[in-house]
């Protein structure tokens, strides 16, 4: 996941797209250095544990769980486990094109 996400963020840097992580590894103090080490430059909500507030409220039971939201704020895709780099690219590109049109 991570190498592809880095490429994705770089490729769409000037497009109406954002990757938003919801991370369950720990608090800010412990997660920030790891994000920096790994070169993760996109924003992460700090959910602290797998049973953190947002994972619990959104009923997340498998990691990664991915939601793709369009520019209008509508859920367009939902995956438990990655659908694969190609599917991700294709769906995101479609919605970005839609947002720009």
């Amino acid at each position, binding site marked *: *996941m991570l190498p592809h*996400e880095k490429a*994705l963020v770089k490729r769409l840097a000037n497009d*109406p*797209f*954002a*990757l*938003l*992580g*919801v*991370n*369950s*590894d720990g608090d*800010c103090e412990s*997660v*920030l250095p*790891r*994000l920096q080490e*790994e070169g993760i430059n996109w*924003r*992460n*909500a*700090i*959910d602290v*544990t*797998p*049973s953190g*507030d*947002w*994972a*619990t*409220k*959104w*009923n*997340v039971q498998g*990691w*990664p*769980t*991915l*939601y*793709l*939201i*369009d*520019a*209008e*704020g*509508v*859920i*367009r*895709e*939902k995956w438990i486990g990655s659908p694969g780099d190609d599917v*991700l690219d294709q769906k*995101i590109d479609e*919605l*970005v094109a839609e*947002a720009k049109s």
Partner: protein
Amino acid sequence: MMNLAHGVGGLSIAAVCLAFGTAVSQDDDLPELQNRLENLREEFRVAERSRFKALNDAETPQATSAAAAVDPWAPLRERFDTLAFDASGTEVAAGAWATICVNELRYGTPAPAFEAFGILINDHPNSDELIPVVGVIWSAGRDNPHTAEGLRQLSEDSENRDVRGGALFGLAKLLESADATKDEAFEIYRKITADYADVASTRGSTLGEMSAGALFEAEHLQVGMAVPDIASVDETNAAFKLSDYKGKVVLVDFWGFW
């Protein structure tokens, strides 16, 4: 006097054992059996930890598959079986059957897991040892028609409230996985939020929170729905909302390094 009474008690228990043809243990044996269970569980924990460590340390895909192929349960399976029979009818047997059930599901095959589940329902319906079992058995439920029945029975008849709540939650998870029974699942989630909200789940949150999550997902997190907002802090401790990103396509990724 004490010795005599004890001797008589021992005899009558032995007689009961013979009558039922099972190895019901005398009270004197319980601490020893308890020790055996604890030692076996510790041995298994060590084997599992070393597997996780090998998985974490693996640096190539080949090393990862080699580490994943290691089965920490296989070498211990028979010894847990033997203990379950030696301790038959006691809380130690409940512990052994519960361990067998959970790990056959995780590393082995469904048949012995369901056999263990059946024994737990019949002989140990009130045991705390059932809590982790009802937390996982539903995931294999579609392979075995007796799972829903067993969970339903425990949710009604167990005298242990945590077991009743956990069984009800497992039943809801199982029913939710088929379209025809989804509505019944949501009814059960609502019942849990009313009657068993405070019961701890095996995940660290409560059954009430987990059930509320399942209902929230069904009502607000389906494709085509307006996404509910998230308000959180980011890695720099700055507050933000998902709705700040309106006008952009957003990929929300629930993830962890672990």
